[in-house]
């Protein structure tokens, strides 16, 4: 057989039938649902009298709309409440396993899936949410779909899909102190652009990727969609298997060993050919932050705001001018030192226990700067409980951070956690689009440690200052 990539192997293993012009019926192992992109799909099933083919391959959570404060009261906002209640009615009617708002396992769908062992290596995993790419860190083919496709999976447990192109991003070497998975991924997006991965599935490879823990791999795969890719993948290895072992819904004992033997075959063949290859040296990557309103507008924290006049393409120059205006930034100024109003540590990109530990390391014994509002929103109830067991909640509360319940929160501001017009935020989320965190809000994407550094200094700051690796301003 011809040499195949990891993507090719997972794909081939899930093809039910090849139709005309490369379109395949692709089998889906796991279908994750949340309250925002599922109501119309359930409605579609009901209208056509179709059944949900495999409730036991489906899981639902509430995350996008939910308040991150007191959960003992009903949701105040009537439309958010209706969406949550609609999901609850649907899961009852169709028999879908569901983690309700009050359950300790509730959280962001992309945190809950891996944490519960619902997302496993070699699977095809879909969800009506673009950041489904996160689960690719498990070595699974995981991608976001629209609501019509959600309905298609519900009714058939399959999707009509064409194979993607193969791209490999290799990061070799060892990153310096203070440089995290988030910085690696921002560097990759800065390099290839937000459309760089369009039509591709990206496999992340190289020693710097292998060295990452699962949380870091999830951060990387999560933002594959920001590079335009359909999905991101990291080949499963011992780090993966150690993570999976013992998770509530993972196979146990002999079944685990059997599964693991199969998972070990899931690597790209040595002579497989990729349509596109990109190489980065880990040593070149520094803590990064975005300055514009697209995730590709990345700057090293020691960089200066770029000049639109330096753009060759007039359309690009116009786009930069508009961004600078929206972001309220001046050409030629250092990005470090830019004052922030809000700090948001959370989202499916960076809300796992490892992320909170790294933020706590900076927050410990310091105080949130005067006039800054800083929120910590754990990715799931279990992450929150773990952090509390480690005393991280005390670290944050003593420093003046808000310690909240799990959910999407200020990543997209569908619940009351929103920026107001003109507010500037250092955020560990994945999108800095205009108005993403609230109409008129200004977002700077960065790592949890960098966000914590911004909280305690009141401005975008090189986190390496605290370890003496970089010089203070």
């Amino acid at each position, binding site marked *: 057989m011809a040499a195949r990539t990891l993507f090719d192997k997972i794909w081939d293993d899930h093809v039910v039938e090849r*139709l005309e012009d490369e379109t395949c019926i692709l089998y889906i192992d796991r279908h994750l649902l949340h309250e925002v992109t599922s109501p119309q799909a359930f409605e579609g099933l009901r209208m056509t009298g179709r059944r949900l083919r495999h409730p036991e391959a489906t899981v639902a959570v509430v995350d996008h709309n939910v308040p991150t404060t007191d959960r003992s009261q009903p949701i105040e906002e009537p439309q958010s409440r209706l969406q949550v209640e609609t999901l609850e009615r649907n899961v009852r009617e169709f028999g879908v396993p569901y983690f309700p708002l009050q359950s300790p*396992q509730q959280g962001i769908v992309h945190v809950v899936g891996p944490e519960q062992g619902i997302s496993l290596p070699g699977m095809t995993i879909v969800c009506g949410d673009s950041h489904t790419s996160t689960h690719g860190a498990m070595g699974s083919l995981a991608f976001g779909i*629209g609501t019509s496709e959600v309905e298609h999976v519900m009714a058939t447990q399959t999707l009509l899909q064409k194979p993607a192109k193969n791209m490999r991003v290799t990061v070799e070497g060892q990153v310096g102190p203070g440089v995290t998975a988030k910085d690696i991924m921002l560097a990759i997006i800065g390099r290839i652009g937000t459309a760089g991965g*369009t039509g591709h599935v990206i496999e992340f490879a190289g020693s710097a990727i292998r060295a990452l823990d699962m949380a870091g791999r999830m951060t990387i795969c999560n933002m594959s969609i920001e590079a335009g890719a359909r999905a991101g993948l990291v080949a499963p290895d011992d780090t993966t298997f150690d993570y999976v072992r013992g998770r*509530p*819904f993972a196979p146990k004992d002999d079944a685990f060993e059997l599964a693991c033997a199969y998972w070990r075959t899931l690597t790209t063949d040595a002579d497989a050919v990729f349509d596109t290859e990109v190489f980065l040296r880990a040593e070149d990557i520094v803590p990064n932050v975005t300055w514009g309103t697209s995730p590709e507008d990345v700057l090293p924290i020691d960089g200066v705001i770029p000049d639109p006049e330096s753009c060759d393409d007039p359309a690009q120059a116009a786009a930069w001018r508009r961004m600078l205006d929206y972001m309220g930034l001046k050409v030629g100024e250092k990005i470090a030192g830019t004052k922030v109003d809000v700090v948001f540590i959370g989202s499916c990109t960076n809300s796992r226990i490892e992320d909170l530990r790294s933020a706590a390391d900076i927050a410990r014994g310091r105080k949130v700067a005067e006039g800054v509002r800083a929120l910590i929103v754990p990715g799931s109830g279990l992450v929150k409980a773990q952090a509390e067991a480690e005393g991280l909640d005390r670290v944050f509360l003593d420093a003046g951070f808000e310690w909240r319940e799990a959910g999407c929160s200020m990543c997209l*501001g569908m619940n009351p956690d929103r920026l107001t017009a003109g507010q500037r935020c250092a955020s560990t989320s994945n999108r800095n*689009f205009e108005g993403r965190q609230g*109409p008129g809000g200004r977002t700077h994407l960065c790592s949890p440690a960098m966000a914590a550094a911004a909280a305690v200094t009141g401005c975008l700051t090189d986190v390496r200052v605290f370890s003496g690796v970089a010089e203070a301003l």
Partner: protein
Amino acid sequence: MQKFTTLTAVAAPMPNENIDTDQIIPARFLKTIQRTGLGKFAFAAQRYDADGQERPDFVLNREPYRHAEILVTYDNFGCGSSREHAPWALLDFGVRCVIAPSFADIFYNNCFKNGILPIQLPREICDALMSDATMGANARLTVDLERQVVVRPDGEEIPFVVDPFRRHMLIEGLDDIALTLRHEGDISAYESERAKEKPWMPKIVLGSGS
């Protein structure tokens, strides 16, 4: 799904790259549990000021573009979130066709499921169509999916490519689920094979976990 065969309509120019789905329909409007009614919120941030009044300078607030059924735009249209609310909002506004040099994958897919035709054409051709789209009352294009051409106001025909399967589904207004269910036998056969090959594959039943 509504069929798409040919369309002659006003084309609105949106000469920006990376128009993301948060711009097409901001998150605060995703709380609906229906597919319809989102048209009035399409491009809300650009279309309305803080008091909810229309901004006269936004293209879709001007005649004849209020009635645009075609959008001409630049690279990476529809990037960002997978929300199908984006094509629903466009459709509810009246848009049936978007022309751009490139589209984000999920958005591109979502269009076909809703009877919207996304057409990918090289940047130079989009530039020419962009200037057609600025001709106000004369900014009318014809999109003929059967012949796979866009007809410019001066009569010039520009061929485009779309994959035959999707073209067929759109022209006939077919539902993919019904089509896939015709392969029910193959799906069941795959499932029994999978049960043999991957006996470890867990079923998710609450109470069986932790």
